[in-house]
């Protein structure tokens, strides 16, 4: 009956009374070492759990190894420990299990596929999963690993920003096509990302790829209207990595300090480029105006957004751009590059949330954009922008759509 089917759907049951069981495989997932890694994956897990699904997460983690073959005794030792005490080998917190995977240097993304496949297989020997559907995050390495493991049905979500680098490896395009063709459903988090995949792998895959955005959860982020057009306090939230444009960020901030000596920059995040950023600021005499928080729980990001005047996010390539959307949710104007994810996610509210700069923008262009916001000349509408973020990317909305996908395939 329709009524009981609706109830089943609402409770996370497949029709017939069984609970929907899902295995999520993701190389990114928040843990004790990194509060940010894969937070969007965890948001999806929480959203479908809220609808009643049972979800187990397998989180393969790269353990860097020297070049060449991983010696058999390393694998044997891991197997021996796993048999003796599964949780000693596979760190498990609730339903999330880390899967240590030795990946030789220079083995590339396909080397990660081999390591993930072997390590997850070993994990399942001692900690098996019995699920209705597997959801792998990233086509390669994780989606391909799920195929190698024989999982079925498989949903694959792609959201890696380093896609072109991965696909430039010998043989990667053919393997990636295999994932898109064989996955029961292949999802991209933005149209921009889908276009990049089609450009690299062939337009004939267009009908195989669906769109489902990431979740933007504003429950810990308070909205505050900024009516004074202040732009003194800049904020950036994300990885401190070169590919995130942090060098341009600090150079632009240095330039802005010349017109506003009271300006501050708060960098919420951690990353390999942090030493460079701190050295640069020290060498140029503005280290005291810059705060680097390091990795923080996502729940504390809201307080930093609340204290800021403007988000400056200059990553040249984003698959989606959660950080900018969270800033919009906090009522902050945003200066970003046309990095793919930003213009896709901002959509028709682009002119109401801030400024999108061309990829060729330099530090002067960034300062000009911030100054435009500060002048009050732009017709920003932060209330409408926040409402749009909630409408399109809330956990309820995205979780419901994902849950329906699982149900259909299970």
């Amino acid at each position, binding site marked *: 009956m329709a009524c009981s089917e609706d109830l089943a759907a609402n409770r996370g049951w497949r029709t017939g009374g069984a609970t929907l069981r899902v295995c999520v495989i993701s190389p990114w997932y928040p843990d*004790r*070492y990194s509060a940010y890694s894969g937070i969007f994956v965890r948001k999806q897990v929480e959203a479908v759990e809220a609808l009643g699904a049972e979800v187990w997460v397998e989180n393969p983690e790269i*353990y*860097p*190894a*020297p*070049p*060449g*073959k*991983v*010696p*058999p*005794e*390393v694998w*044997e*030792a*891991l197997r*021996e*420990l796993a048999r003796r*005490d599964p949780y*000693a*080998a*596979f*760190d498990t917190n609730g339903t999330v299990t880390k899967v*240590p995977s*030795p990946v030789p*240097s*220079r083995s590339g993304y396909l080397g990660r596929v081999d390591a993930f496949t072997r390590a997850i297989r070993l994990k399942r020997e001692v900690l098996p999963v019995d699920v209705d559907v597997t959801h792998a995050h990233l086509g390669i390495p994780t989606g391909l690993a799920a195929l190698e493991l024989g999982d079925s049905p498989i949903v694959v979500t792609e959201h890696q920003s380093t896609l072109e680098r991965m696909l430039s490896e010998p043989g990667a395009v053919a393997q990636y096509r295999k994932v898109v063709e064989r996955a029961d459903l292949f999802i991209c988090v933005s149209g921009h990302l889908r276009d990049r995949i089609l450009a690299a792998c062939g337009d004939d895959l267009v009908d195989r790829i669906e769109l489902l955005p990431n979740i933007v959860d504003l429950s810990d982020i308070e909205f505050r209207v900024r009516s004074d057009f202040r732009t003194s306090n800049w904020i950036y939230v994300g990885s401190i990595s*070169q590919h995130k444009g942090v*060098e341009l960020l600090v*150079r632009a901030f240095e330039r802005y300090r010349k017109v506003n000596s009271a300006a501050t920059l708060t960098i919420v995040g951690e990353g390999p480029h942090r*030493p*460079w950023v701190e*050295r*640069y600021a020290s060498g140029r005499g503005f280290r005291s105006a810059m705060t680097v928080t390091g990795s923080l729980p996502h729940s504390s990001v809201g307080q930093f957004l609340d204290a800021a005047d403007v988000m400056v996010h200059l990553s040249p390539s984003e698959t989606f751009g959660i950080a900018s959307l969270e800033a919009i949710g906090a009522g902050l104007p945003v200066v970003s590059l046309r990095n793919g994810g930003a213009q896709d996610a901002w959509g028709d509210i682009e002119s109401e949330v801030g400024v999108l700069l061309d990829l060729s923008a330099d530090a002067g262009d960034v300062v000009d954009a911030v100054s435009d916001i500060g002048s009050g000349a732009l017709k920003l509408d932060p209330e409408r922008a926040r409402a749009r973020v909630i409408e399109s990317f809330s956990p309820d909305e995205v979780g419901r759509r994902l849950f329906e996908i699982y149900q259909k395939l299970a």
Partner: protein
Amino acid sequence: MTLVLILNRTLRLANAISYAASDDSGEKVILTGETADVAGIALPPGTELMALAGPSAHPAVSARIVGRAEHWVKGGSALGARASRWLRSAEWRLRYVDRLKSLFESGKGPDSTFDQVDVSEALRELESSHVIEQIVVFDLFDLPPALAFAATRDLPVKVR
């Protein structure tokens, strides 16, 4: 009672330090082959550092030297960034050559995990001055010797 954290290569050093900081059970010792990487880093209270002798501690491939060179060449430019990546790549190659050289000199094949010797010896040395309670491995290449050492002493071993 001492918790021993092992990582021959320091690529997961941040994880080991974070783990040590979150554990308040008592004394901790980090065994690593690249003490230069740890020098200058604030270790959590009650945590000491002990060096493993081995190929990765070779001065020619010291991560600290590479880090300093990287700092010097980088300077924020795109050219510097490329030079930095080249340096990292060169570091891996040097380590690999160094490893192979040592393996052949010691009469072992290239598949041998000769790092085991260093870890086992370091654990035995540590045992003479500390009561080891548990071993936590952060580099999977250190797991075989750690398990072998723990097996005869009934010590728990974890991978983290």
